[in-house]
């Protein structure tokens, strides 16, 4: 194996860098993760199953994964749009807007949570008009989606933006000169190139949302069975010194997240390959 890698690799120092990367991955990612699994393995299988299929836990998985998915979809659509507008069009205040996009990364999540709660509670600037329409935002799953959208906003913008910037205008000109309409050019020429980056942004936004805690606990109201997210359930169990129970739920979260990321990555590779074949 080692010999074969050596023969095939054109990179100098491949063995060293590979070993270094693996060591890093082990220290920072794999060891903490295996500690989680080890901790929960102090439970018997039936205990584990009872904890992770508790109705309260099931309700929290539905909220966490459902709201994260919705928020990532919103971010995919609007993040793509924002990236497109920032790269392609010139308008006053463009640079300012470009800088503002990173705000959700810089703002402490708890501050963001409190600000969003203030805006979307029934007497807030957005909450009052929404309440007049009969929509409650804060302390409902909708509030969770709003907060998760805020948190994941920069990912799609920042992954799509450089790809759009590097896109060769000549390809679009060729497409237009061959009689394609602007819309055809967009979805047959531009979109396939940008799609893998957009999916990466979606995945990042989605996985960030699944683990998000700080901004949600204020706006959700944390009602068990209704607006309680899984990370909060884990913290609640930790506060009750139920370490095994907390890690059992963490293991389920990790497992589901890993499976979803694997599926999304596979999809992404497939879109990449399709493009390669077509090109």
């Amino acid at each position, binding site marked *: 194996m080692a010999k074969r890698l050596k023969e095939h690799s054109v990179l100098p120092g491949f063995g060293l860098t590979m070993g270094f990367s693996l060591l890093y991955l082990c220290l920072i990612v794999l060891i903490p993760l295996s500690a989680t699994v080890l901790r929960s393995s102090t439970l018997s299988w039936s205990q584990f199953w009872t904890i992770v299929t508790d109705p309260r836990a099931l309700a929290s998985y539905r909220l966490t994964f459902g709201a994260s998915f919705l928020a990532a979809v919103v971010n995919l659509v609007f993040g793509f749009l924002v990236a497109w507008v920032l790269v392609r069009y010139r308008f006053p205040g463009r640079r300012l*807007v470009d800088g503002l996009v990173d705000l959700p990364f810089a703002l402490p999540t708890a501050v963001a949570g409190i*600000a969003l709660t203030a805006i979307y509670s029934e007497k807030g600037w957005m909450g009052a008009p929404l309440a007049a329409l009969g929509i409650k935002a804060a302390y409902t799953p909708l509030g969770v989606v709003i907060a998760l959208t805020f948190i994941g906003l920069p990912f799609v913008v920042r992954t799509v933006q450089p790809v759009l910037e590097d896109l060769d205008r000549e390809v679009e000109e060729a497409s237009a*000169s061959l009689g394609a309409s602007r819309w055809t050019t967009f979805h047959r020429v531009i979109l396939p190139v940008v799609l893998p980056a957009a999916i990466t942004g979606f995945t990042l936004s989605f996985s960030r949302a699944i683990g998000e805690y700080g901004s949600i606990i204020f706006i959700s109201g944390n009602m068990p069975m209704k607006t309680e997210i899984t990370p909060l359930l884990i913290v609640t169990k930790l*506060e009750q010194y139920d370490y095994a129970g907390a890690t059992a739920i963490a293991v389920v979260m990790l497992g589901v997240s890993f499976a979803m990321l694997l599926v999304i990555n596979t999809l992404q590779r497939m879109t990449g390959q399709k493009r390669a074949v077509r090109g």
Partner: protein
Amino acid sequence: MSGGIQRAGESRATAEPPIVRATLIGVALVFLALFLLLPLFVIFVEGLRQGVGAYFAALGERLELTHVATNRDTFAQGALRAAKWIANHPAGRYAMADVLGLSG
């Protein structure tokens, strides 16, 4: 609108009609205003709500001890803890300080 937005040297074949551009820019800006600017603005408004004077007064010195409950879980957990504790005790009159072991 179109003159200011259109890139120099860009041919019409690889550009969207002005109305499409304006719509896209409008939608993107409204989305960002709602999701980014509004929270930022609220933070500043809330931070300076008591007036700039109060803010500068606070730069001198200040010691506060405040209890703010944002969640009923806290109280529920206290109640549960007290219930667990009292289950093993004979009938009588107890205070929270007894539950927490602070009564000596």
